[in-house]
């Protein structure tokens, strides 16, 4: 199986509103793909379906060849995800939270402990490991969200606006982490920040009103439209909100 992620004719209705319209997309192993599009384009909906948080109205999705809709738990075993603006249990500390999530993923003992220390250091929350999350800022929670996504060293990262809520330094650090991660992982992430997309990804899937407008490498798109990625985005989404 060469595809890490395969989305096939995915549609999703919220009552009468069509959020995804027959979306199909393939992300090959170790590819880094950004899902971009205007507000309400269906980016988060697509990621939520991939993470088993929503059921599609029609179509299906596969992760490493495993149907997410039919075998959610098995499909998600090799995925690390950040979806929307995640919250954590305020009464637990980062160390306890990661320990909980790590154990749910079959990690234990020394391996888990050392990996928790590693990811907390990576996201620069190691000094906050034993502080209850109720005291955390939005940015700190976002860092912790990345820590839990990377905890089990998954081959696939699905990230929804991973730099949201971070201060400028946090954004730079997060991008550096993602740039490092993309060397050996498949990264599929949604973002509004095209400067970030250019730094982290090779390819973009541009969607609007739930439909795929274009899916190509950034370099090829720039050549084809003879403009920056931002120019391509503006041209293709003209008239969108």
């Amino acid at each position: 199986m060469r595809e890490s992620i395969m989305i096939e004719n995915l549609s999703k209705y919220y009552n009468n509103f069509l959020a995804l319209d027959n979306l199909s997309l393939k992300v090959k192993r170790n590819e880094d793909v950004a899902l971009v599009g205007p507000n309400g384009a269906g980016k988060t909906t697509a990621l939520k379906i991939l993470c088993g948080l929503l059921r599609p109205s029609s179509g299906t999705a596969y992760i490493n060849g495993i149907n997410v809709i039919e075998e959610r738990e098995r499909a998600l075993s090799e995925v690390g995800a950040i979806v929307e603006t995640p919250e954590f249990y305020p009464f637990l500390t980062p160390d306890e939270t990661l320990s909980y999530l790590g154990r749910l993923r079959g990690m234990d003992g020394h391996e888990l402990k050392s990996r928790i220390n590693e990811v907390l250091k990576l996201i620069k929350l190691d000094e906050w490991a034993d502080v209850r999350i109720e005291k955390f800022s939005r940015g700190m929670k976002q860092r912790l969200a990345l820590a839990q996504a990377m905890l089990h060293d998954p081959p696939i990262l699905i990230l929804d606006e991973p730099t949201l809520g971070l201060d400028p330094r946090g954004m730079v650090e997060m991008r550096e982490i993602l740039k490092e991660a993309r060397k050996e992982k498949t990264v599929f992430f949604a973002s509004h920040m095209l400067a970030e997309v250019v730094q982290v990804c090779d390819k973009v899937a541009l969607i609007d009103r739930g439909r795929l407008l274009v899916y190509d490498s950034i370099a090829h798109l720039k050549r084809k439209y003879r403009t920056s990625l931002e120019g391509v985005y503006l041209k293709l989404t003209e008239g969108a909100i």
Partner: protein
Amino acid sequence: MNLEFEKLKIVSKYELLKQFRRKRFYGALVIVILAQILMIGLYKGLDLPTALSKPGLGIIIVDSPELFAIFMVSMTSFAVLAAVFFAGDAIASEFEHKTGYVLFPNPVKRSTLVIGKYLACFLATLVILSVGYVISAIALLGLYQGIPVGILGSLAISIALVFGVLGIAFFFSSLLKGGMGATIATLIIFMVVSPIIRSSLSYTGHEPWFLPDYAGDAVASTYGIDFTKIFGGMISGGGMQGMMTMTPNPVVSFFVLLIYALVTLLVSIWLTKRREMI
């Protein structure tokens, strides 16, 4: 199966840790302890057996360990109330406070999460309930030098009641958007809807054995004392007449509560599995 059982233990452990870190756990514990101390003072200070006796009607109520135990265990109903507050937001908060965005994308079945949360809420409530029964037992030993055997049956029904209450709270928690709504809905079922139906049925001579709050009253009917003689006389003509005129059968009540627990928990699992994080 084995792996899922391991995950169930992990979910229960961390959910229990969450419960133990919440102020409401300690609040409920303090309330149960204070309520029981207050009851000891009221029972002995006001000489309740004599106060409840109606010699004119031929009702003479004699003080006994069994009667004292009834009053004491009635105070453990605060522990059952605590269960509602523990469970009301157990599922709903994952959606309402967005913690589900972190929890649900993990390779764990939603049924495991629901059962794990349920067990954690049960264990947290059991701690408070146990403290209530231990205080009752100590008071009985101190005042009467003995503990009526009926206290074991009472404890069993209390545990079944906690299971039932948790099941109903979990049902609402998986159905409604907010934890507060689920908590209020559960309390309304127990404190408004069920008593109204119960009262209406009692007036017409039908025993409301299938109602959860009536079945829960069986915590006091394992001591071999007829409720109707004690409380029926006390509230004659009062607003609660009709509610205390029947004594629930402990065995029937035990199974009624377990059925409530099982059915509502199953429905809660089904609802949670279907629920989307929109």
